[in-house]
């Protein structure tokens, strides 16, 4: 009988001491974790894909909360969850949605094999980065697509593929999550994240060649030569020509496509429009002007 009592007392005493120690330790060594991190983590898809650039969803949640404390969560976006998830996260953190408008990767090069003749053969390591470091590449254009597919390798969502006929990568709008991995992978900065546009309709200058007109023209049949016709034509002031290269500001562009019509090199592309671009009215005076 006696040893039952002893056992109860001893175990009770040990339990009590342990409880006191644990209580003291939990107070003394408490680490405060923002409860919002767990909440944000809950909202994220939990795929831990790393598409956002962090090691996993936990890291992203941490960064989001830190960003919110610092005043902005711009630049952080979950490619898998998309605008949906980011909207919820922004609501939770009381931030404005950083990327309100859905974006998509746009390849700004038209230099297909047909338009841009090869002048040399590259035999080294077949990555764009290696070829870029060696020189202008196989064509005379020192700005355009090298066609080795560094962007394709960088895409985790199978959204970008090389077209075997043109040698230029093409982006699948539906699969692209605008994570920006391809933008970083391209050594020539050809790919840009642009507004997806209503029904996927967008107009952009599909060239990044900054050479002067004659040089650019010699290298590629469809390069921007910086002639400035589009700049003059644009009724919204969305187009600027800098360093012999036109750029269409997606914020100002109203998709009228007048620039597409006037571009003498067909360097401006319009995608996902149901009708062909020609706007007949501006075209006629243009022709007269050219004759005069």
């Amino acid at each position, binding site marked *: 009988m006696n040893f039952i009592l002893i056992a109860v007392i001893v175990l009770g005493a040990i339990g009590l001491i342990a409880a006191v120690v644990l209580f003291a330790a939990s107070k003394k060594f408490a680490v405060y974790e923002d409860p919002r991190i767990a909440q944000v983590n809950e909202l994220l898809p939990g795929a831990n894909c790393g598409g956002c650039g962090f090691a996993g969803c936990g890291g992203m949640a941490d960064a989001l909360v830190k960003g919110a404390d610092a005043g902005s969560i711009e630049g952080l976006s979950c490619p898998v969850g998309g605008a949906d998830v980011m909207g919820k996260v922004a609501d939770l953190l009381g931030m404005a949605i950083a990327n309100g408008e859905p974006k998509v990767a746009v390849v700004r090069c038209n230099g297909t094999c047909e338009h841009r003749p090869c*002048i*040399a*053969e590259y*035999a*080294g*390591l077949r*990555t764009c*980065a*290696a070829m870029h*470091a*060696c*020189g*202008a*590449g196989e064509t*005379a254009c*020192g700005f355009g697509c090298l066609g080795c597919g560094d962007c394709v390798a960088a895409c985790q969502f199978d959204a970008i593929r090389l077209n075997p006929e043109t040698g230029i990568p093409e982006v699948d709008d539906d699969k692209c999550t605008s994570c920006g991995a391809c933008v970083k992978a391209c050594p020539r900065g050809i790919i840009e994240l642009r507004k997806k546009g209503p029904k996927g309709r967008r107009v952009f200058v599909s060239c990044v060649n900054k*050479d*002067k007109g004659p*040089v650019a023209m010699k290298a590629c049949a469809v390069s921007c030569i910086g002639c400035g016709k589009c700049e003059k034509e644009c009724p919204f002031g969305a187009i600027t020509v800098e360093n012999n290269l036109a750029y269409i500001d997606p914020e100002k562009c109203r998709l009228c496509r007048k620039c597409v019509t006037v571009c003498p090199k067909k360097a401006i592309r319009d995608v996902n429009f149901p009708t062909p671009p020609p706007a007949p009215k501006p075209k006629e005076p243009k022709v007269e002007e050219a004759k005069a």
Partner: protein
Amino acid sequence: MNAKSFRIGGIHPEENKLTNDAVTQVAALPKQAIFPLSQHIGAPAKPVVQKGDKVKVGTMIAEAGGFVSAPIYSSVSGTVFKIDTAIDATGYRKPVIIINVEGDEWEEAIDRSDKLETVEAHPELTPEEVVNRVKVAGVTGMGGAGFPTFIKLTPPPTAKAECVIINAVECEPYITADFRLMMEKADEILVGLELLMMAAKVTTGYIGIETNKPAAIELLTNKCAEKFGGTKYSVEVVPLKQRYPQGGEKQLVDAVIRRQVPAPPAIPVNVGAIVQNVGTAFAVYEAVMKHKPLFERYTTVTGKKLQNPGNFLVRMGTPMKDLIDACGGMPEGDNKLLAGGPMMGKALTSVEVPICKGTNSVTIISDDEARRKEPQPCIRCAKCVGACPMGLEPYLLAKLLEVKNWERAEREDIVSCIECGSCQFTCPAHRPLLDNIRLGKSTVMGIIRSRAAKK
């Protein structure tokens, strides 16, 4: 002959010195000369002429664009046609000055006589004056990399120079420009060496020459004994075993004075050596003694299929096409055009690229010789490890680059790579080792730079 060599790695590619006996010809003046503003390591030069300006041979057309930079002088007389862009040896369009050639009128200050000037005859020369004249004349390393010479001659206060080593190794296959220069301008080179030693305030000099150039070794040994015997200078011609990349600064220092240069940012002067190319020694002589800025150089134009390969004294800015035409024109079929030799040379996509300060050779390799074989999986034979003259592990570095492990690559000392290509040359699986390493090296160096900028 008891020939020395560097201690780690190295390979022995086929020599192919086709132009050993071709006496240097003076290349014809070009119709139009093109001067890239970036012919050296460091900041590009800044143009000081405008379209329509008249220039003479030896007129400065661009001034140094920073401390690590060098001015550029016109090699021709004529009119500045325009300041534009043109493809240079990088393969990209870069800013250039284009001059239409009219006649051949030289600046009066340049001494065009062949008379050998000696240091004894010019007591006004002080070490500072020599360095200054070298700087003003725009002399840069003539071996290829093109580092401004005056900087090498003024080492940082933490390092003390003990000797000047003249790099007359020319380990790169095909090239013979340095050999011809030694055979034809030996006296001038030795005066150049004396000036270099004077500028660096040392009395010990070495001339490293590979044993495949016995004539040059003999000639320079005799001339050295004649010139430096009984003076305060001790100069030794060091015969070196043929081994690539012996012409690399660090390898040459190891071969000649048995000292290892530590990993970057250490440079040879940290172990007491100032290494200068033999062409640079000649350029220093001309700059200091003849007041002639750097606008001419010895260049080899070579290739097995070329009709008359040869060595040329060529004005910089001459398009390669002119030299190739002088050698019988571009051979039939597809060819690989290199600025430099087959190991370190840079493949070009245009024959209009001009000869620059560092262009020691124009090499044309036929298609079948140049073509790479299909890469196979690595068989872990470690030949590349044995060949690497810097003691690196090329297979590992290349792999780290494939998986983008920059931290590990930095720990494995990727920045020490001198891009000699020995690893790729020796790889039995034809793997593009150097392509990968070069890419990784530039990435890692970028990371290191941005880290330093943050601090």
